[in-house]
């Protein structure tokens, strides 16, 4: 006979407000094998915990039910209590969630109380079938992987590397840096973006603990927290980076000169063998196989002839490597929404002088295609009237996305300021829905832009069309209640941030979740903002949602500190609630092996005596380190040979029966 103790928490009035706790305790005292019942105002408090430990020890309890808040809240705390202060195995504990799933969702004691009693009865039934489980320590591989090398990834990599752990920084483009080096100035301080970003890039490249893999993508992630086996495909660069000196001779001689430059947002051209910008890291050239004549047509070879270092290798192939990492930081950033597809009323890309904010950054940048002179793309003339439209794609659930992209209010103000600074006789109109300038020095910056002479019009632009060489922007100024039309020379669209292409594939590869908008989901929006629901995987920067550079860098530091914490500890406690295979029932069909997302199951040969005959047959086996206790195999297993320890079929059946027959 087991001796079950039930402890019902009032949680102040959180539970007691809608559940008659004394009635629950009274009902619990009549449940099978329950020998001790107590109530507590705050079970999780120190005195509350002490009273549980005392009751367990004095009454020789061997199973414990705590009726309180969600097990996600305090189950670990109470397990620790059992382990440290009592002789009861910590897995002989069941939490009946009578707060989140009962008192908080009901208003009436007449409903809340019987439901709480049912929840307690189910927990009592289940705990009776619980078995002792034990944890073990699993060593952690003390290396980190950072996916994405924008400013978030670079910062996270530097922080982890500075703590003394080796880091691999994976970037799918040819250079690290991401979007930040493309920006001209950063708000609100107006310091040069590249000037503060490129030193970080060089620092990462020079750091003894950082290995940079560019043109690389994560293909597969196996394993679990502390021991992720990650397969990385490093695409062929056709240039031997060990030999290349980055002299740029190849780039000068390359005959393919009409390829739109990604770095300059299509406002200039690059060659087929190229470095996206002078401060690129690694500072080496790469051949773009889609445009290289030698690789597409087999005739050219100019770069190979001019390369003094003999670094060109047209036969280069992808390199696929698998390495083990303890922690993963996902910092894959954002891309800008493809506005041309969804805003035909803004020309849908027909007018060359309707440009995106990122294109404006390149136009106004001293190292950009116009050397910092604001010249419109169509005829390279200085625009005298510029219209800036905010929330293009953002806050537009019908065409774009419903969320606010957070940074655009500020960079719209910055663009207006920069334009008026460079073209003092110009006029700048900003169409806005709201001006959101929450941040240190942000509102002051906006005010300064207004003083510069930017004209803010509250309303959206409904149409842009061309007339007499002007872009006519028709919109509404809701404050004067008038339809306005502005004859602009150039229009800048402050477009929405969206998750980059491939984010969905990466989410399934790394096994993390995405929200409805496609951004990676944090484990808790407030209290665990950089963790994911997959232990050992952390989020940094805009991969988690739109944010500006200061927030991105801060979050990268936070993600790094979480990763460092894991790597410092050096081990993790194994989860004993894993799958167990009953080999007597297992027919070795391998359904569990196919379905396991963690590669924790395999088929092995087993020799056993059956009906006084020695037989060898194939059965499934669980790797306790890899198994995460998700239970997928237990549903795939038809005869029920796979069962989850701590969540066994029997315990669940007891719960269901108790509920059904009460």
């Amino acid at each position, binding site marked *: 006979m087991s001796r079950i103790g039930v402890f019902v928490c009032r949680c102040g009035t959180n539970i007691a407000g809608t559940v008659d706790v004394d009635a629950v305790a009274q009902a619990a005292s009549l449940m099978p094998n329950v020998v001790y019942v107590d109530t507590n105002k705050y079970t999780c408090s120190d005195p509350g915990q002490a009273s549980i430990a005392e009751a367990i020890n004095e009454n020789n309890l061997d199973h414990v039910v705590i009726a309180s808040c969600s097990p996600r809240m305090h189950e670990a705390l109470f397990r620790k209590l059992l382990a440290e202060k009592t002789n009861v195995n910590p897995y002989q504990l069941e939490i009946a969630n009578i707060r989140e799933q009962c008192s908080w969702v009901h208003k009436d004691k007449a409903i809340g109380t019987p439901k709480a009693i049912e929840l307690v009865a189910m927990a009592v039934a289940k705990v009776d079938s619980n078995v002792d489980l034990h944890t073990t320590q699993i060593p952690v591989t003390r290396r980190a992987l950072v996916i994405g090398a924008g400013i978030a990834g670079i910062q996270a990599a530097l922080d982890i590397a500075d703590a003394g752990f080796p880091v691999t920084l994976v970037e799918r483009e040819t250079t690290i840096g991401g979007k930040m080096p493309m920006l001209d100035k950063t708000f609100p301080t107006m310091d040069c973006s590249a000037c503060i970003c490129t030193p970080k890039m060089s620092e990462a490249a020079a750091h003894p603990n950082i290995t940079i893999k560019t043109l690389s993508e994560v293909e597969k992630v196996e394993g679990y927290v502390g021991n992720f086996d990650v397969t990385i495909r490093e695409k062929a660069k056709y240039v031997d980076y060990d030999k290349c000196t980055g002299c740029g001779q190849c780039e000068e001689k390359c005959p393919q000169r009409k390829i739109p430059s990604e770095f300059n947002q299509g406002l200039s051209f690059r060659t087929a063998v190229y470095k996206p910008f002078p401060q690129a890291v690694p500072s080496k050239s790469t051949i773009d196989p889609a445009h290289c004549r030698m690789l597409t047509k087999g005739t050219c070879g100019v770069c190979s002839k001019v390369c003094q270092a003999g670094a060109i290798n047209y036969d280069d192939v992808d390199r696929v490597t698998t390495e083990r990492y303890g922690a993963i930081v996902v910092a894959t950033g954002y891309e800008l929404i493809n506005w041309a597809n969804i805003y035909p009323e803004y020309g849908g890309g027909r007018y060359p002088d309707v440009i995106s904010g990122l294109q404006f950054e390149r136009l106004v940048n001293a190292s950009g295609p116009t050397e910092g002179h604001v010249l419109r793309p169509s005829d390279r003339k200085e625009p005298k009237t510029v219209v800036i439209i905010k929330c293009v794609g953002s806050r537009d659930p019908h065409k774009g996305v419903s969320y606010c992209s957070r940074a655009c209010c500020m960079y719209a103000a910055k663009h207006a300021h920069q334009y008026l600074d460079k073209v003092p006789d110009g006029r700048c109109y900003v169409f806005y829905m709201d001006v959101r300038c929450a941040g240190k020095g942000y509102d002051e910056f906006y005010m300064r832009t207004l003083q510069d002479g930017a004209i803010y019009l509250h309303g959206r632009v409904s149409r842009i069309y061309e007339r007499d060489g002007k872009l006519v922007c028709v919109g509404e100024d809701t404050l004067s209640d008038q339809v306005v039309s502005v004859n602009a020379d150039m229009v800048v669209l402050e477009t929405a941030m969206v998750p980059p292409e491939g984010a*969905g594939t990466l989410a399934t*590869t790394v096994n993390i*979740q995405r929200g409805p908008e496609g951004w990676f989901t944090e484990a808790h929006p407030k209290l665990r903002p950089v963790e994911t629901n997959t232990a050992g995987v952390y989020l940094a920067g805009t991969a988690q949602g739109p944010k500006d550079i200061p927030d991105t860098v801060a979050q990268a530091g936070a993600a790094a500190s979480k990763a460092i914490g894991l790597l410092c500890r050096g081990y993790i406690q194994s989860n004993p609630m894993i799958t167990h295979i009953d080999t007597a*029932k297992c027919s070795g069909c*391998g359904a569990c092996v*196919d*379905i396991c997302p963690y590669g924790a199951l395999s088929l092995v040969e087993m020799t056993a005596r059956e009906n006084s005959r020695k037989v060898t047959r194939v059965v499934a086996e669980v790797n306790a380190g890899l198994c995460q206790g998700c239970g997928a195999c237990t549903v795939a297993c038809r*005869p029920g040979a796979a069962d989850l320890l701590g969540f066994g079929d*029997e315990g669940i059946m007891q719960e269901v*029966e108790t509920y059904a027959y009460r």
Partner: protein
Amino acid sequence: MNDATQIVRERATALLADGTVAAVVGWAAGRGDHDRHVFVARTPEEAALLVADQYCGALAAKRVLSLLDEGKIALVARGCESRAVNRFMADRQLKRDQVHVIGWPCPGMLDPATGDALKRCTECQRRNPVLSDEVVGDPVPEPELDRFAELERFEQKTPEERRAFFQDMYESCIRCYACRNACPCCTCRVCFVDQERVGWMGEEFTADQARYYGTVRAFHTGDRCIECGECQRVCPQHLPLMLLMHKQVRDIDGLFGPYPGGGMEPEGPDPLRTYHTDDLEEFM
């Protein structure tokens, strides 16, 4: 004696005589004129009793599994038997080198009692073997038919009519488990219905228990079903068991397809136990 019977006997005799296989699984004649049962020939003499004609209605493939201890086994395999072999391999119950497949392009089987085409043959989509080591006779044209016709008729029913249909169906079920025993997907060591697990499955003889058995069996086999229809053929109560199977096969085709049906490919895994990064996740 028809050609197929003659060639099967010759080949079986030869395979047994030279020791290639330990036994040949096929059919032999019973007492009645058109009685045929699954038969295991272990000697050349027994091989002379093999028959391959239009009355061999039973699915012979599952018999192979119980003979594997004896050595390599030859199986006379039509479309359905060959798909069963693929099924066994995908379920890791059989290795390719444990079986010698004598392919037999199927002429379509007849009901020995009525002389009509067997129901399972009228819904067949694959008469020629999908794999074989040798073939007896020439390939036959594959039937062009809508195997989901019955399902579509069923889906015209209102929810109340469907409920009544299943209530009626499971009230007639005697839970003899013939469907399970005949099914090439049912290769568990211990079936869930035979396990002593309190609260899961009782011994009561009620429509509820039969429905539980029928529904769980449908889920256990639906994503792997080779659509041989043998369950329906062996059912002494003539229950329309293939309805739930066809429903699942068609759904899988729609959701994760194109899906030709179970056992068409030699290797698993099957759609519902395969995970692709681009799988539908509209519920997430």
